[in-house]
């Protein structure tokens, strides 16, 4: 894991350095943000899944707990790696421009969209998540804590989604948007957990159950996306439909297509019993890749280009995160 992460990071660096040299620095911020949203999302999704299981019980979650804990432990790493983003708000948020240059609607939002308040919210979320992750990693503490944790997660993830995924396009707003982020986080975390479980070997019955569960989460994710698309498409309001137009033009349609192929492929494979059971790890990887593509598709088109520079920064951040996670795990193994 460490080696794979380092290789990825080096490849990313090979793209990112020229980007920086040729004055495409702002593009790096977008790529970095996408990677961080994905990595943070895996940890947050793991927290969500773990606490839901603590409340509902069921055999599906017992085997899943260790990989979920490991993912949750990745949270401090991801937070640490996100710090550079705080330094380049101008590249991420158009509303940092002088107020008189902004459209009237955006000016009306400035009491919320301003850097001091944004940083305060981010810090609050980070602290809450650190507490949640540390407590989760050291074992479950019963229903009451899980309830509180889930409520805190729902609220903080909503704030996070609005601040870092929606605010880059300040004229756009959609009330279902944070729920889509939650669904991606949990689906991605489940997929990552399943990959880890498959490496350690898993009995057929569990594979069957967990595969169905992953299918259920994928359906939930697809449902939320479809509802937002249907409503925005039907109304065709300028401040909404541009979210989709921007994500279908300038080559981003290819990313959308790739995400659709990956996720639909994962869905078909998960619904198909024999494929689900025989190629369990591969199907889970497909699902994770699909959810990753979805994160990239939601984040990147709002950011300054070009795409290759964004990809470089994303690969660098993802690689560093993977490598750090691998080191953490190795240290833990040595302690155990």
């Amino acid at each position: 894991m460490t080696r794979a992460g380092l290789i990825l990071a080096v490849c990313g660096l090979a793209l990112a350095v020229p980007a920086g040299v040729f004055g495409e620095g702002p593009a790096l911020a977008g790529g970095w943000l996408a990677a961080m949203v994905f990595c943070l999302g895996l940890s947050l999704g793991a927290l969500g899944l773990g606490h839901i299981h603590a409340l509902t019980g069921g055999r599906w979650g017992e085997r899943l707990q260790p990989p979920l804990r490991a993912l949750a432990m990745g949270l401090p790493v991801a937070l640490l790696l996100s710090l550079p983003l705080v330094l380049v708000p101008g590249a991420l948020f158009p509303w940092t421009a002088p107020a008189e240059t902004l459209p009237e609607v955006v000016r009306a939002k400035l009491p919320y969209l301003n850097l001091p308040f944004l940083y305060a919210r981010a810090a609050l979320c980070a602290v809450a998540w650190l507490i949640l992750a540390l407590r989760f990693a050291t074992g479950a503490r019963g229903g009451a804590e899980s309830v509180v944790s889930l409520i805190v997660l729902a609220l903080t993830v909503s704030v996070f989604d609005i601040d870092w995924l929606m605010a880059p396009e300040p004229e756009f707003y959609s009330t279902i948007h944070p729920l889509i982020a939650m669904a991606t986080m949990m689906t991605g975390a489940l997929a990552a957990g399943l990959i880890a479980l498959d490496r350690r070997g898993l009995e057929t019955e569990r594979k069957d159950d967990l595969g169905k569960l992953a299918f259920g989460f994928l359906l939930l994710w697809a449902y939320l996306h479809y509802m937002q698309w249907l409503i925005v498409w039907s109304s065709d309001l300028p401040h909404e439909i541009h979210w989709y137009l921007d994500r279908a033009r300038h080559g981003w349609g290819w990313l959308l297509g790739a995400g659709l192929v990956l996720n639909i492929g994962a869905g078909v494979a998960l619904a198909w019993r024999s494929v689900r059971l025989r190629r369990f790890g591969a199907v889970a990887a497909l699902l994770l890749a699909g959810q990753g593509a979805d994160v990239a598709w939601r984040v990147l088109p709002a950011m300054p280009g070009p795409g290759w520079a964004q990809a470089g920064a994303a690969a660098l951040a993802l690689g560093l995160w993977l490598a750090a996670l691998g080191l953490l795990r190795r240290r833990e193994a040595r302690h155990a």
Partner: protein
Amino acid sequence: MTADPRPALMAAFPDEHALCAAARALAGRPGMDAFTPYPVEGLAETLGMRRTRLPLAMLAGGMAGAVFVYALILYSVTIAYPINVGGRGLNAWPAYLMLAFEGGILGAALAGGFGLFRANGLPQLHDPVFATPGFTFARGGGFWLLVPLGGDTADALRARLTDLGGERVEEVPQ
């Protein structure tokens, strides 16, 4: 599906385990059936049932429903009466998917429901099994095994069933 005309015996067992054990012991005889107050897992396979194709029928029904609805919509918006709504194309698939989905669910459910009754040969209001002395579906605890005589004599089979734990062995009236 009509009632099996072969002469047969029915034996009552005290519980599902005794019934399953007896069914396993007699497995392979043609035309066996069992009657239980609730579903008993694996019993039908023991009695030689092949995997039911009803799920496939439901899949086909679902596909047919969805395709039919979408085709109907396409026909009506492109051939029967094309109307420009809000400048979107005539084939406004984001909206039509919703209806195709409902059509698919309806098709699958109808295929499953009616397929179930058809595969089970219901309604079958009159059946020789009902007239077997002592048989009733009502009193919980009635676990019955129906075994056609095949080559055996009635007495031999009766003895065999009693050996297997049958508490009561009756002839199925013709």
